[in-house]
């Protein structure tokens, strides 16, 4: 840096023609150099330090208790607008009607296949609608991305778990042979497995990967079981019953669900570690 030749430094990087056009800038640089701002005094610096120190202590005390977590969850839950709840209820009703009441196997398989897509679209709708403002808020917020990540994960899983009995109770009534605990384990396996995969891929790479990879795997699983479902459904009307029976007796399915549960938990842990060192909270 040409510190002793300010006019040279000022022009450095400009084209030769522009430098020529501007000509001699010595008078200008002398003029500019005469505009001085006094350096802060020791007293001013001490005053600033005192006001900042109070904030430094607050920053260090960023851990918050159960009340703080509950408040954060409540604040995040407010992001869910009424349309989201209507969409959830409509989806659940649709699943029940097509799967259990109408008994159309193909339709229930289709519902099964698209349900993660619908859920994901809902989540993206909520957290991406005003993503630039959300990002700005996150950056300025004393609550870090790590806390937001845990909060939102807990919220999504909590909503899904809370909705599970709404599906299980009518299912149990319609199919008494259904082993309740198996359904819970299998449901949780699929839920946590896919949720963990979607979260990790989104946090690690981007939203596109976080959508394509879990949905691709889900599609492959549904596609692989499609033939069995069709073979066992006869006239396309008994697939639901076959699925219920399979869930109730298949140990292989149970083990697979447990593995998916463990993998999903591990992926969530890895995603959380990634979030800790990054700015994103998968919003």
């Amino acid at each position, binding site marked *: *840096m*040409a*510190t*002793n*030749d*300010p006019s040279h*430094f*000022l*022009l*450095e*990087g*400009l*084209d030769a023609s*522009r430098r020529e*056009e*501007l*000509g001699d*800038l010595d*008078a*200008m*640089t002398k*003029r*500019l*150099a*005469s*505009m*001085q*701002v*006094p*350096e*802060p*005094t020791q007293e*001013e*610096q001490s005053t*600033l*330090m005192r*006001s*900042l*120190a109070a*904030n*430094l*202590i607050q*920053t*260090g005390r960023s851990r918050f208790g159960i009340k703080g977590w509950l408040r954060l969850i409540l604040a995040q839950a407010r992001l869910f607008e009424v349309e989201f709840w209507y969409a959830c209820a409509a989806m659940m009703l649709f699943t029940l009607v097509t799967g259990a009441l109408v008994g159309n196997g193909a339709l229930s398989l289709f519902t099964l296949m698209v349900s993660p897509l619908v859920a994901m679209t809902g989540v993206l709708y909520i957290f991406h609608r005003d993503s630039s403002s959300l990002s700005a808020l*996150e*950056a*300025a*917020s*004393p*609550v*870090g*991305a790590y806390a937001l990540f845990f909060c939102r994960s807990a919220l999504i899983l909590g909503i899904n778990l809370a909705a599970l009995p709404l599906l299980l109770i009518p299912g149990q009534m319609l199919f008494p042979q259904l082993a309740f605990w198996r359904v819970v384990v299998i449901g949780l396996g699929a839920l946590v497995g896919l949720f963990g995969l979607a979260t990790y891929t989104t946090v690690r790479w981007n939203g596109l990967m976080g959508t394509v990879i879990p949905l691709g795997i889900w599609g492959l699983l549904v596609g692989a079981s499609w033939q069995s479902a069709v073979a066992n459904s006869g006239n396309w009307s008994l697939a639901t019953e076959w699925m219920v029976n399979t869930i109730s007796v298949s140990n292989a399915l149970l083990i697979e669900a447990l593995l998916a549960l463990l993998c999903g938990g591990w992926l969530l842990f890895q995603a959380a570690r990634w979030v800790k*060192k*990054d*700015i994103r909270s998968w919003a």
Partner: protein
Amino acid sequence: MVGVAQGMNDEALFEQVLSGNQQVLEELVTRYYGPLRGYFYRLVDGNLQDSEDLVQETFLRILRYKGKMPYSFRLWVYTLARNLAYDRFRSASYKHEQVGDKTDLIEERDEYPTIHGVDTYNRLPEAKVIERVSAEAVREELYRLPALQREVIIMRFYGEMKLEEIATITGCPLGTVKSRLFKGLQQYKKILEEVENGNE
């Protein structure tokens, strides 16, 4: 710790500050208080109190930051400062003040900054006499430039920043920065000529 802090680079200091280290914060304040105050003073409105407020706000944002560690703290902090300056430009109170009288002069002090390796205070005795009046006049002249051109000149001349660094801070292509610098200098030269002609 203070001695250790002096040997640390800005990024390492920032990391320590975020973990709540007050002594390290003091070093960061020592490094950036003066340059930031000068930046705000020249860019925003030449009011020392406003500049102080903006400096404080900048440091508060630094302390509250929860994101990824910036690659260059200096560039990051000037980007932050620039955003705050533009928020100030847009504020109603700023617009209101521009209508009123602005005669805030720089108070006389013992310490003055070194610009481009030259101690600007201890220059020729006659220059010292007219210094306060001159600073105000330069400020008025600079304010006749569009803000985007003015900021490039300020960052370049007083901040001694490279054009690439200015491009990063302003989020503009390098060509745009060069163009703003050229137009700003061209315009400022005309303003100086007008001033000179007016004085004759």
